[in-house]
């Protein structure tokens, strides 16, 4: 197996163009499991560990730009105020050691329906920055996933960053699993209030072949919420929202849970997270975590 260790993004893109079969490796928390268990025998690995551009975050055009390889631990420590939903999701990933290495770029590269950053990225309308020697393009995250563990990347492309507008309202992330550490989510839900746009963003995880927003639920709740003079939400509205989120899912039965259980749990997560986020909006206060 060849091992490429470029020092700059330009070198990495050149290497990827020349060796389309080289598998990128950032934190390695997905790739190494596949290698150790011989699930994958790549001809070459492209180590992104030395590329400074991929390990930085900053502001660009009013948005937060997070380099693809920035580990979850830094998102939690350094971006929790601007991106509370993503930070909440990051806190639930694996274990501290996994969070020290694992990255959002790796989560997107793997494109597992169970990846925890996806619901938060969807709810916040993130955009994925993708580059190759041919140039750079931006893809809205809802268009990024194309199937189970598949995404829009061409063989010569790398994910270079995600761009997310800083939160203008309350955000929540909630996931169902058998315990706190190191479990793959049975299902997960991300929610973001966007008072500036008078809308609510949603994202479903482990609920369909790809992570996806609950579009009908978003449309419904946008007409129900009074942003000018916010009032507590009727239970019937929360329930309807939950039901529409569950309808947006097309889950499967597997060892972690049945499709029926997943639908039920998603409705509960959706109802609760909306309730929490809206009370925060009403009270101006902030709930720390789901």
């Amino acid at each position, binding site marked *: *197996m*060849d*091992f490429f*260790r470029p020092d700059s993004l330009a070198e990495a893109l050149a290497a990827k163009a020349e060796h389309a079969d080289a598998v990128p*490796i950032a*934190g*390695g*928390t997905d790739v*190494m*499991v596949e*290698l*150790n*268990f011989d699930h994958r025998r790549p001809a070459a*690995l492209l*180590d992104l*560990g030395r590329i400074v551009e991929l390990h930085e975050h900053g502001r660009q055009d009013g948005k937060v730009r997070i380099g693809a390889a920035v580990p979850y*631990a830094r998102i939690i420590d350094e971006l929790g105020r601007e991106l509370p939903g993503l930070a909440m999701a990051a806190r639930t990933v*694996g*274990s*501290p*050691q*996994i969070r*020290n*290495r694992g990255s959002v770029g790796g989560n997107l590269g793997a494109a597992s329906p169970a990846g925890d950053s996806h619901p938060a990225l969807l709810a916040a309308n993130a955009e994925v920055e993708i580059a190759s020697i041919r140039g750079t393009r931006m893809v809205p995250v809802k268009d990024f996933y194309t199937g189970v563990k598949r995404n829009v990347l061409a063989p010569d492309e790398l994910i270079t960053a995600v761009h997310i507008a800083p939160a203008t309202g309350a955000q929540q992330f909630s996931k169902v699993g058998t315990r*706190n*550490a*190191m479990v793959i989510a049975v299902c997960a839900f991300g929610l973001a209030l966007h008072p500036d746009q008078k809308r609510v963003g949603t994202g479903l995880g482990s609920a369909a072949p790809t992570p996806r927003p609950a579009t009908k639920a978003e449309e419904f709740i946008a007409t129900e919420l009074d942003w000018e003079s916010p009032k507590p939400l009727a239970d019937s509205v929360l329930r309807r929202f939950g039901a529409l989120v569950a309808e947006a899912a097309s889950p499967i039965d597997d060892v972690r849970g049945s499709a029926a259980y997943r639908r039920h749990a998603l409705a509960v997560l959706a109802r609760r997270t909306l309730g929490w986020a809206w009370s925060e909006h009403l009270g101006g206060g902030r709930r720390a975590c789901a």
Partner: protein
Amino acid sequence: MDAEITLRVDGADQPVTVDTRTTVLDALRERLGNTSPKKGCDHGQCGACTVLVDGRRVLSCLMLAVAADGAEVTTAAGLANGDLHPVQRAFIDHDGFQCGYCTPGQICSAVGVLEESDGELSRAEVAERMSGNLCRCGAYPGIVAAVEQAAGEQR
């Protein structure tokens, strides 16, 4: 394919030729005879292989040796500097082990916790921050007490 690399392990430069697929864990155990980190699962779930790479705790089963070329690797065996490291002392004080298999990983992880935190740690926080290290003997009460003691001494 083979690659020539140098790992600085517990303070000594160790040049070694490894296949590019070799993990830091296998390089340490199989090539350099350092059996302090243990292989519990080989896929990131147990923490028994935790070492410090340039001061940060990492799972050595999920890191390629070639990616650690030139890095400073510290195992639990290399923490003692004449005297036991305060975290090692604390594990003895509180019986933070039974069979000892998970212990080198627990200790490196605990050193990482002290490095990452800057202040008092509640029991719940210690448990959360140590959640990547499993102990099949269930020595958790002693482990948590040991990390609390070491964190207290650090302040």
